[in-house]
């Protein structure tokens, strides 16, 4: 009796999720391998694909870090399906560097436009195209209505959309499934070796539908996110004495 109830509830939950347009692909194991511990924040421990993700960016340094994070997620997506469209107003992405994230840069189609309206139109059209692995849109403002339109488009086509918002005036409510903020962290060298180490990021999942927001400090190396407890420890200078 008790089991029946639980089964019914879980079945209903699944239906609701489907209605909300959230899809959990059980076969995106490659992607889940890449993101490692981050998958715990999502329902069924699987990164949601076929939805809209929103990234908040402040400044040029931050933009590069966010691009890096997005690129590392796109890599497993591209391995399974087609090319990626990258739309923006002034995308000074350096294609050869994408190769370091395992992406074939020639498979990314860059579209550079001046007007935000045109960018939005292109993002929506691209999201409707089923053959694409992902669409990355760099845009400043995104209203709820606009985000709803994009979300409806991806629900049909099952393309994953990434909206990178550079210096938005206000962080408003959107229909996107997640909202992220990625910032850089000082790297740590193994055994005190000199030089610049692997990139380290502070990943802040501000908002997630059907999941738990969280903060991680991760290192990107060898094509995956490495979570280290040591990194997560609060730095010495920030520790406060209590009592």
């Amino acid at each position: 009796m008790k089991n029946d109830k639980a089964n019914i509830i879980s079945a209903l939950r699944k239906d609701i999720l489907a209605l909300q347009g959230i899809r959990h692909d059980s076969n995106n194991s490659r992607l889940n391998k890449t993101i490692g511990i981050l998958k715990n924040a999502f329902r069924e421990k699987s990164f949601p694909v076929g939805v809209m993700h929103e990234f908040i960016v402040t400044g040029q340094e931050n933009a590069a870090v966010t691009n890096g994070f997005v690129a590392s997620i796109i890599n497993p997506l591209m391995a399974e399906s087609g090319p990626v469209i990258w739309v923006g107003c002034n995308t000074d992405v350096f294609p050869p560097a994408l190769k370091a994230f395992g992406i074939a840069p020639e498979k990314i189609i860059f579209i550079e436009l001046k007007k935000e309206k045109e960018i939005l139109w292109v993002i929506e059209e691209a999201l409707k195209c089923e053959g694409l692995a992902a669409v990355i849109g760099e845009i400043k403002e995104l209203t709820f209505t606009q985000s709803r339109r994009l979300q409806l488009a991806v629900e049909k086509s099952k393309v994953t959309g990434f909206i990178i918002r550079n210096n938005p005036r206000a962080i408003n409510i959107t229909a996107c499934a997640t909202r992220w903020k990625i910032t850089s962290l000082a790297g740590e060298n193994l055994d005190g070796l000199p030089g610049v180490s692997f990139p380290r990021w502070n990943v802040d999942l501000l908002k997630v539908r059907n999941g738990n927001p969280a903060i991680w400090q991760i290192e990107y190396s060898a094509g995956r996110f490495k979570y280290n407890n040591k990194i997560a420890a609060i730095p010495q200078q920030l520790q406060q004495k209590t009592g």
Partner: protein
Amino acid sequence: MQRRFISIWFCNLATDWMVRRNPSLKDIPFVLAAPDHGKMKVTVANQLAQQDGIYKGMALADARTINHTLQHFDDEPNTEIKLLTGLAEWFIRFTPSVAVDNNDGLLLDATGCAHLWGGEKKYLTDIHKRLQHFGYSHKFGMADTIGTAWAVARFGKETSIVESGLHTTALLPLPTTALRLETVITERLQKLGLVQIKSFIQMPRTALRRRFGKELLQRLDQAMGAEDETIQSIIPAELFYERLLCMEPIATRKGIEIALERLLDALCNRLVKEEKGLRKAILKCYRVDGKIEMIVIGTNHPNCNSKHLYKLFEDKISTITLALGIELFVLEAPVIEDLSAVQEKLFVTNNAVCDVGLAELLDRIGGKIGVQNIHNYVPDAHYWPERSFKVATNIYEKITTEWKLDKPRPLRLLKHPAAIEVTAPVPDYPPMNFRYKGKLHNIKKADGPERIEQEWWLQDGQHRDYYCVEDEEGCRYWLFRLGHYDVKKTYGWFLHGFFA
């Protein structure tokens, strides 16, 4: 249907044209001359001059000693080709497919045309009369193959029309030069005493190939009709085109949409049947007042999907000025490709369907916002960062060199490096701190330098010494020093990119 070809040979095209322009030249010997190796040489001599013993290639001075009254004119290059192209266009009245043959003749594909004039004889008489009226001396040949028609026009003695199926008999008595061979081969044939075609036509083919090469056999086959030969018509036939005539002039957008839909459906049906796809389509709207309105679309990939093509046209319908109305719609597809190319995958993807989808998406975006805004990049074999990649000519371009992975590269690169203020110890240590956009960054970690030299064969300038640095906030930058430290302070520090 039995194919019929006509070859017309203009014996004195250039001189006849001179006479046509200036009738007073008709009874005087004259030549055309052009400078060659520092002296004037005769390029064309008219009939009267030839009777005096003046021939092509003779020095003009020599020709004038033979006949001191000889007139000469400058020979403009390509006169013959221009004249022949003009004539070929005029010949469209006789047949839709006319080609220029070298620089002294025309080739007409007269298949199924002669009966409109009441038979081949009347057809040729008409052509002959008209050319005679123009004043061009000429000779014909009409036969089942281009080779025979050409030979008969130039070397035939009795008749100019070779009855259908009799071309072999007509060829036999003709000299070897009638086969359109290279002079080397004809000379070799003549040396061996093979003066007429009949003297070697019976020889085994292997022997002929061994001694005279493949070309002789090919020309022989073409003349005999064993090998197909086509002519390159000056006006290529528009194979894929549809027209829609309207009872009443159309002056509404809706009307155009309906017309366009019908035309596209008809065209796409044909394309699908023949497994072809269009790359470019033109909709011509003939207005009542005689003007033609046109809209042109292009696609990235051969396409025969009428709905997609309709969408591409739809955006541009508003550019048509309707005025009093449109009475005729013509849809042309000038650029056609085989549809099998669709199966050629855009990128290595799991399903071919998405390729079509992507190509259609790019068509749509390109149609609305301009193709110049869409790029994808392929690697280029240069170390200089700005030149290490280039815009691909099309989205299907294959990469010829590998993307370089050996050195770290920033994910975002400034289009123009930004000048920064730096505190750096000499000689080549990385900077200790730098100021960018008014903010001071203290450098905690650094890698480098990586020297990249300017490519002197492309551009002058100093080398760059690149450093990857990380500041106290963990942000990673790509800095470089331009040039060596020197007394005149020609060096400078720049920020070029941001690492992830």
